[in-house]
């Protein structure tokens, strides 16, 4: 088991290095001279030349990349062009907020999506199933930022139940301000999870071992959980893993709508200010987070499905995403 984990981890490293290279390369194409951005319009030619040399911006691309990677290993992601603060510090300050938002959204997705999917599957073809699936389809089709705005209109402006901006203070304050962003971010995922749960459960429901369980006299509720759901989990877990990537992207939008002080909003503002190191650092950080989540999901597979555990099969989330 531990061999499996280490192996997966080792496979991750070259991929992440590739990520840093590609993103670095893409962002290096950004037009505009960073030096002028930092120093402003009143910079003298002398200062420009000095800073350029200091930042090493005249060096060839590969050299700059190498330098960036060396610094990255030391935990130094450079300094913002806009405010000269450490990029790494700014990221670490804001990432927990994005993380809270993402976790809350996943919880929304699971708490709503899985029960809905189970009920739909057990009551296939009834009006309940049809209604749920139509709602799920609508949920999957809604732009995240639009849902956020609509929720603000209804719950903040009209009903005045929940705040519309920012992150609150104290436990209850944070919780209250988390509701709308988490729901708007999680709704699409909830719909996706519901659909996946339903289709996975339907596959399991027609399996012979369910007949065996019924012939034993097992209660229906026990059958649903211990026999059906446990077997249906694998595709559901896969979907949740994929959803996490969507969520990280969606967080960017949600944080903008709700002025949530997270990494996504930071990144968007950095782009507008042409603060490339911040953008670079953010994208890399989020990609690493995404990859770690996928690794954890792989480990989770092995616990849920004994066939995988006993064979050390290296069928990974990546493999599933690739369609293997």
């Amino acid at each position, binding site marked *: 088991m531990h061999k499996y984990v280490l192996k997966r981890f080792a496979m991750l490293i070259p991929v992440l290095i590739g990520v840093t290279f590609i993103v670095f390369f893409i962002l290096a194409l950004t037009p505009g001279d960073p030096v002028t951005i930092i120093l402003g319009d009143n910079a003298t030619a002398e200062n420009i030349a000095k800073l350029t040399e200091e930042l090493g911006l005249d060096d060839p691309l590969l050299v700059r990349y190498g330098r960036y990677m060396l610094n990255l290993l030391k935990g130094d992601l450079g300094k913002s062009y806009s405010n000269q603060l450490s990029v790494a510090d700014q990221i670490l300050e804001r990432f927990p907020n994005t993380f809270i938002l993402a976790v809350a959204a996943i919880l929304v997705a699971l708490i709503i999506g899985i029960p809905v999917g189970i009920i739909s599957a057990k009551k296939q073809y009834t009006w309940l199933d049809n209604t749920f699936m139509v709602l799920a389809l609508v949920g999957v089709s809604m732009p995240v930022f639009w849902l956020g705005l609509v929720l603000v209109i209804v719950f903040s402006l009209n009903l005045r139940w929940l705040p519309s901006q920012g992150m609150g203070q104290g436990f209850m304050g944070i919780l209250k301000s988390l509701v709308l962003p988490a729901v708007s971010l999680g709704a699409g995922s909830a719909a996706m999870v519901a659909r996946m749960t339903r289709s996975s459960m339907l596959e399991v429901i027609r*399996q*012979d*071992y369910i*007949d*065996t*369980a*019924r*012939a*034993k*006299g*097992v*209660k229906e509720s026990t059958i649903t959980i*211990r*026999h059906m759901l*446990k*077997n249906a989990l694998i595709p559901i877990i896969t979907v949740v893993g994929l959803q996490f990537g969507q969520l990280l992207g969606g967080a960017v939008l949600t944080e903008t709508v709700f002025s949530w002080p997270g990494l996504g909003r930071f990144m968007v503002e950095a782009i507008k200010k042409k603060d490339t190191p911040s953008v670079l650092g953010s994208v890399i950080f989020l990609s690493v987070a995404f990859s770690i989540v996928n690794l954890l999901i792989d480990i989770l597979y092995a616990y*849920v*499905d*004994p*066939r995988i555990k*006993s064979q050390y099969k290296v069928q990974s989330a990546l493999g599933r995403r690739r369609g293997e």
Partner: protein
Amino acid sequence: MAELLEVRDLFIRYETVDGVVEAVNGISLKLDKGSTLGLVGETGAGKTTLAKGIMRLVPNPPGKITKGEIIFNGKDILKLSEADMRKVRGKEISMIFQDPMTSLNPVMTVGEQIAEVISIHEKVSSKGAMEKAKEMLEMVGIPAERAEEYPHQFSGGMKQRVIIAIALACNPSLLIADEPTTALDVTIQAQVLDMMKKLKDKLNTSMILITHDLGVVTQTCDYVAIMYAGEIVEYGSLRDVFKNPQHPYTNGLFGSIPSLAEDVDRLKPIKGLMPDPTNLPKGCKFNPRCEYAEEICRCQSPETTEVKGIHVVKCFKAQGLV
């Protein structure tokens, strides 16, 4: 001999978008304690539906038991509440299904799956249930240490043994086995049948064995019922039916088995196909395929009449009317 099970005039149908499937059409049968009934018929005859009907496991929707009674140990189990029926399943009547490869839950250990049926019906601790489960494993010839393994770690024949262990764990009076050896190799088949016979004798379990293999019937059954299009067309003791078959279908079945003794140029199949259960023929359901069919066979459905003692048949020709 005490009568364990009596099915009276049972009708089961499935209401689907493609039409109404008349799966079981007026079946009546009796089973004594300790004996084995072989239920023989081709695929599509309604054998599995009948078995599921006795267990009240016919999926509803779209299945419905529209008429009839099933008297088990003196009670009509069709009238039981679902909660009471659950107490019967696994404890008084057990069923094993056709394909052992897919009949076990892949994410539970075999020990847990056997212990589950014990925990439901008997007042034991979970430890006690697992102990009993291990005993059952030994009884079917699997080492008790393997209780912690998962189904995918066993071969087909061993999976079937586990399934039998689950079915017999609570010592049911009736075991319904739906083609228990069809999916297995011939050599394994013999082993499993043998084991089933021993256990059956040891625990005095009555059995309904569903099969399309006449060889299996001769090995294990005391009584035989021949099923066609949801009806029992002939019934009797093993000897009765094999020595003195009355129904043209029964004769057809025996005649289509290749003989070891004779050299033949062509096999003798029964001409035609099983009728479409959503569109059964009028009159005797076998008439389109029967070489003796006459006008009366096409218009009326024959009654079940006695041939000799308990040997009965449902056929105008056998009754001498054709």
